[in-house]
């Protein structure tokens, strides 16, 4: 190689290396936490693009800016729910972290334990159980923005058509159990050809939604300390055997590879959260009731979301100030219209009914208030995404008519044991 060519090679290598280093610096590998100097434009990522939700959030932001003119804008950035967490982490990786973010319960342990979130102001009004997954070493890292209990929306017209009693009648008689619900679902399928029960958002993939079923048997995905797998325990085997029978023998539940939208009148019952009430139309008469009792009696399950301040956002202090305003008692009452607030001062049906026109005081009291007070949050764990994928992959073998339930569930534990023990 002559000297001239050598020099060209070195020049090219230097150019490439400089490019790599410059882009890496932008890539978020280093600590790039912003400061609050200069004009403040806050950005918060949310998953819901529902006009009424955004109107509410924009209203709170406008109110805040009246007394904080240094904050030039507050933008609510809607990310698709299907890959919300991946998009958020990609933004953080790319050095474009939002200032605030809505975080789902299933990624709470990862965000809280990693130090990605800034500590936020605690409030004694919020129920301790609702704050549990957002705390570490006694500090709070996100406000439990929405603590939404699972209940059952019921198409009473469809049940009537199938000659079935209503859950409200069964609740009065103390007979609202999963056995009864399954029998009703099977009858609906048999007499109307429609689907009996849909565990909404499960779709044979999002298995953590099945907690709204297996908790009735006292089953759990893993122990409270997260170290021991619960899928192969007798309670889980019984719950999943019962579920399998309801799907494949009784044909009471939505079958794998099919869809039925309750809100479009395609099923008699759906297990879901209060916020879905916004999808109800006047197509049919409906009711909203608590989850049926399991063999272990009454129980409640909640889904949760937290609002957090990102430590790597451009304006963490300004974001923390807006966070405190957004989640104060007054604004929490407004947010409660769509996102149930786990605040002891607001857990009364009359107050909730003011902002929930679609649900009656009784429905709010029986499902929402009881659920928030006594509900258990869906399973969460550090490294949940990896565990989630492993469980899903193993459970796929369960969604067949001839599945060996105990064997499949043992396989689930074998698959996730290394991750639980980490």
């Amino acid at each position, binding site marked *: 190689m002559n000297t001239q060519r050598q020099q060209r090679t070195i020049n090219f290598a230097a150019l*490439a290396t400089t*490019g*790599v280093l410059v*882009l*890496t610096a932008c*890539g*978020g*590998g*280093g*600590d790039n936490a912003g400061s609050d100097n200069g004009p403040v434009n806050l950005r918060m990522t949310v998953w819901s693009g529902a006009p009424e939700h955004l109107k509410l959030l924009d209203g709170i932001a406008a109110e805040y800016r009246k007394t904080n003119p240094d904050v030039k804008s507050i933008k609510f950035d809607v990310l698709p729910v299907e890959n919300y967490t*991946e998009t958020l*982490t*990609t933004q*953080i*990786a790319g050095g474009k972290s939002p200032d605030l973010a809505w975080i789902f319960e299933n990624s709470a342990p*990862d*965000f809280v334990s*990693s*130090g*990605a979130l800034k500590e936020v102001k605690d409030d004694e009004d919020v129920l301790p159980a609702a704050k549990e997954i957002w705390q570490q070493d006694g500090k709070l890292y996100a406000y439990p923005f929405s603590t939404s209990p699972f209940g059952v929306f019921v198409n009473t017209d469809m049940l009537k058509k199938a000659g079935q009693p209503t859950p409200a009648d069964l609740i009065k008689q103390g007979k609202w159990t999963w056995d009864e619900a399954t029998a009703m679902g099977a009858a609906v399928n048999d007499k109307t050809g429609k689907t009996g029960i849909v565990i909404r958002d499960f779709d*044979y*993939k999002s298995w953590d939604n099945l907690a709204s079923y297996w908790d009735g048997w006292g089953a759990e995905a893993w122990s409270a300390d997260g170290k021991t797998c619960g899928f192969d325990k007798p309670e889980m085997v019984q719950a999943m055997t019962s579920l399998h029978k309801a799907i494949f023998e009784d044909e009471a539940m939505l*079958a*794998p*590879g*099919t*869809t039925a939208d309750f809100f479009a009148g395609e099923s008699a019952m759906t297990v879901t959260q209060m916020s879905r009430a916004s999808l109800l139309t006047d197509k049919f008469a409906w009711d909203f009731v608590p989850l049926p009792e399991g063999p272990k009696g009454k129980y409640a399950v909640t889904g949760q979301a937290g609002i957090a301040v990102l430590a*790597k956002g451009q304006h963490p202090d300004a974001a923390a100030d807006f966070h405190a305003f957004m989640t104060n008692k007054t604004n929490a009452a407004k947010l409660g219209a769509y996102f149930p607030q786990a605040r002891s001062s607001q857990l009364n049906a009359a107050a909730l009914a003011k902002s929930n026109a679609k649900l009656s005081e009784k429905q709010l009291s029986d499902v929402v208030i009881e659920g928030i007070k006594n509900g258990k949050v869906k399973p969460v764990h550090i*490294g949940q*995404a*990896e565990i989630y*994928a492993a469980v*899903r*992959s*193993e459970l*796929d*073998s369960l*969604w067949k008519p001839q599945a060996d339930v105990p064997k499949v569930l043992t396989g689930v534990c074998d698959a996730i044991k290394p991750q639980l023990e980490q």
Partner: protein
Amino acid sequence: MKTHDRPRVPEAGPANDGARAGRSFWTSRRRDHLAGYLFIAPQLIGSVVFVLVPLILVVWYSFHEWNVLAGTFHGVGTDNYENLFDDPKLPGVLRATGYFSVGLVVLNLSLALALAVLLNQKLRGGVVFRTLFFSPVVVSLVAWTIVWGFLLQKNGGINAGLDLIGVDGPNWLRSEGTSMLSVIVVQCFKNVGLNMVLFLAALQGVPRELYEAATVDGAGRWRQFWRITVPLISPTILLTSIITVVGSLQVFAQIAVLTQGGPGGSTTVLVYYLYQQAFKFHHFGYGATLSVLLFLIVLVLTIVQWQMRKKWVFHES
């Protein structure tokens, strides 16, 4: 190329200093070069910024562990490459990738060739059929896949059609036996039109006299196809096979929309797996290592195919 027709620049000397200052650097040759570089600059800059630099970065990241949430980034040497050999899921992922690639290449190329041969027959309505088969190529990939997702449901359109002829269709996307096949078929129908058009153009370039001579010699249609058509369109077969193989190794959206790698990991191909590792499980370093593995696989397969052209691609020269 030498520019003999251009006047030579006079030797430097005190008498020529004024002339040099005016025209010595921007010779017409240099201006031509500059114009050339300016023309290719947009593509060159794009390639460097969006291809070369990311490629180098991916290799660099593959020697690091990067926890996005914790904000930690540190070198791990060859650990990620050693993990490739210890990863119990990787053999299944590579099997699924191979299954998809082989299935798609065989189905796509044979169907595209068959359609091209049929459309080359100068039958009535050829233009309509050509448009019909080509139209999926211009349809949005995600929209196409979502529609197929509905059709392939247990109670979807495909099984409704099968039911009409008394066949109880399977649960296409929920069964390990049919899920990958479904993804292959969806992808094949999406892009078969492109290969079909390329084959059609190649077929129309085959001289008619060769067929006439072969007919005079008593060769049947099948013999003509294998001895005349296939050799003469072999450069196009090479091109389409390289495009299809490389495309098949990069399949992602179809898997993400239709099966999300399931059931039981049966449709978890390499690109989907590296997406999971990097963006879902936050193992960016290992995800980068899987990207390097994918790059090497594509590179080796392309080189092998390119080398094979010497053996089976027909060149008139």
